[in-house]
């Protein structure tokens, strides 16, 4: 097993999960009840035997810093490993100039002085299950400059819009472009790159000289650069979702209620780690009716729930009916309230008898801590 440096990247400036991302950064958003979005990439790294990680943060650092801590719940030991949060010391008011290249450039000495030869850079907002050791092995075997992970999809006309797609010839990535949903079958980029540490340092240096607005992805995508950089594709076959809008957030949650689907990312030999809270098991009263749900500990269900995700310590009161909804931790759905096709943010209270009804096309959203 190789000693790899893991870098968790932030999303690009176009990504926005309407509502939820007003209150915290995307990696810190509650996901599938008991997790945060960032848990998946960090667990992939931990399960790949990576115990030196850097997490890049663009904004709203507090909730992410609190959730990640020093990484001990991702099996990072403070003596043998390290998890370092990299945040900009400079005031960058224009989001366009707040890129991963810029941030890595500020902290390049930490990359330079790390003991690891190879680096994997992966974004926090892609949900997948991947062993980065395999990517590094392929990278070394092919002698590529960069190995970029992609998945061939056939529903590109409706999903992964706004992601990047690759043209690939003989396994080499020749074109990187935005995915607009015009075709169904395409190679979606997981925005996950493996390269030698020295190559990354050169890339950062070169990119920041060429333009202050370059990100790693946009630098590689540039027609002049991609000609000279040997980017090999690594084909990923597993489950993939990208949390880049409220709709994708909602749909990914709902899709994974199905256990057969969820098995693609959850298995006992590849645990998804998260910060836990010592909550008691979920409790269902005599009047509970529950079908097709994913329920976190600490919940008390007295009403009816169907096709729902319940975060930690959610309370569903008597007579309440909740369908096709994502309820974030500590929210309370009052007696006889009705909630459908909604995302209820953390700690919100839906009062007695209230109806919150969205549709598949227009998900209803209730803000953090609001009482409605």
């Amino acid at each position, binding site marked *: 097993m190789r000693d790899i440096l893991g870098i968790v990247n932030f999303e690009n400036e176009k990504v926005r999960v309407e509502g939820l991302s007003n209150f915290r950064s995307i990696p810190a958003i509650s996901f599938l009840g*008991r997790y945060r979005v960032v848990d998946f990439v960090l667990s992939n790294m931990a399960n790949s035997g990576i115990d030196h990680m850097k997490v890049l943060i663009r904004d709203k650092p507090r909730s992410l810093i609190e959730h990640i801590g020093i990484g001990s719940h991702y099996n990072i030991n403070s003596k043998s490993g390290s998890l370092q949060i990299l945040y900009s010391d400079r005031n960058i008011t224009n989001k366009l100039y707040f890129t991963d290249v810029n941030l890595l450039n500020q902290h390049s000495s930490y990359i330079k002085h790390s003991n690891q030869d190879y680096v994997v850079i992966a974004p926090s907002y892609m949900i997948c299950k991947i062993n980065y050791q395999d990517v590094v092995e392929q990278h070394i075997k092919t002698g590529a400059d960069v190995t970029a992970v992609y998945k061939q999809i056939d529903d590109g006309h409706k999903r992964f819009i706004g992601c990047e797609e690759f043209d690939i010839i003989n396994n080499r990535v020749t074109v990187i472009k935005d995915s607009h949903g015009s075709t169904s079958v395409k190679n979606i980029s997981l925005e996950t790159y493996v390269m030698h540490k020295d190559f990354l340092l050169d890339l950062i240096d070169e990119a920041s000289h060429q333009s202050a607005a370059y990100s790693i992805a946009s630098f590689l995508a540039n027609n002049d650069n991609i000609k000279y950089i040997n980017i090999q594709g690594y084909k990923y076959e597993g489950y993939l979702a990208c949390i880049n809008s409220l709709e994708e957030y909602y749909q990914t949650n709902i899709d994974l209620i199905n256990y057969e689907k969820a098995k693609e990312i959850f298995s006992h030999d590849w645990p998804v780690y998260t910060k836990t809270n*010592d909550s008691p098991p*979920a409790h*269902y009263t*005599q009047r509970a009716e529950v079908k097709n749900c*994913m329920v976190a500990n600490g919940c008390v269900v007295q009403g009816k729930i169907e096709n729902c995700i319940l975060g930690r310590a959610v309370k569903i009161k008597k007579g309440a009916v909740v369908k096709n909804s994502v309820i974030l931790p500590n929210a309370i759905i009052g007696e006889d309230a009705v909630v459908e096709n909604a995302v209820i943010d953390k700690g919100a209270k839906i009062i007695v008898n209230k109806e919150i009804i969205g549709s598949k096309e227009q998900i209803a959203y209730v803000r953090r801590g609001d009482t409605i």
Partner: protein
Amino acid sequence: MKTEMLAMILAGGRGTRLMELTEKAAKPAVHFGGKYRIIDFPLSNCANSKIKYVGVLTQYESIVLNSYVSQSSFWGLDGRDKGTFVLNPREKVTGFSLYMGTADAIYQNIDFMDQYEPKYVLILSGDHIYKMDYDHMLDFHKQNNADLTIAGLTVTLEEASRFGIMNTNKDYSIYEFEEKPPVPKNNLASMGIYIFNYDVLKKALIEDAPRKDSAHDFGKNIIPNLLNEGKRLFAYPFAGYWKDVGTIDSLWQAHMDLLAQGDPLKLDDDNWKIYTEDIPTTPQFIGPNACLKGSSINQGCIIDGTVTNSVLFRDVVIEKGAEIINSVIMPESIVKKGAKVKNCIVKEKQLILENEVIGSDDKVELFTSREVK
């Protein structure tokens, strides 16, 4: 290393009445409440009472218990000035012997206690289910200027003869202590929770140790001796939920209490959490055919059957059409399609076959006979 009150948990019990559940684990390591082990309760009580150092005295076949207890971080008892310490019998200059009784177990660890120069020592049992603030009990002990304070529970008069019974004055000072009296004068029972002034405890233990006629037991020897010597003994009345889960029936009953009484232990209380090991699992999946009523279900479970008045631990699978009634299913057990489980405790990692029926209407059964491969 100096600490005001050191806790010592007697966790040596083989728990023979819990039968196969304790085959490879001591009784305090038995699973409880959908998520916990029994010893999580005294250990979490210690942590929440701001006690810093806890010695856990183990003896019998205690690999599971020893490994578990030594992970002090489970209860937030890790760190610079904190710790849980497993205390097995050790060889000494004077030779070696097993712990001969509750008092002897503490006596053999005087050197451990001395390290912390405690003013008070709290002695607990590792196999009782309850929540208690030992810091309040210490306040009570100090206010009474007591030498020994014993937590007391009001039991029914019928039960009283199974306990050590404290006969007290109005101010809760104890004038008589009767171990398992055939005709109890009173129903205030010792919970086996003691706060001693350490100097009094140490002297009493050293005096008791060489006595050939002593059982080296707190209830039978130490406490009566202290009363004879005119020491100040007080009973600290306790009112909350308390259960000794020493038999399969009482273990099952305690789980039914949890469900029927609406969280009598207040497991949901953020200010007095019961801490336990954090095992990474999958989320809890409830399938399209599930029916859940009056049940507590832990993360990692995959449920597509009917679960009524039952407690399911981590990673239990209940397949479509299976029915679980009034039962306790321990971690990683699998109940196949169409099976029926009634009034049972199913040990961890057990397999119930398709359409198998286990349990009966009139008694509680323990299922331990088929491990998951």
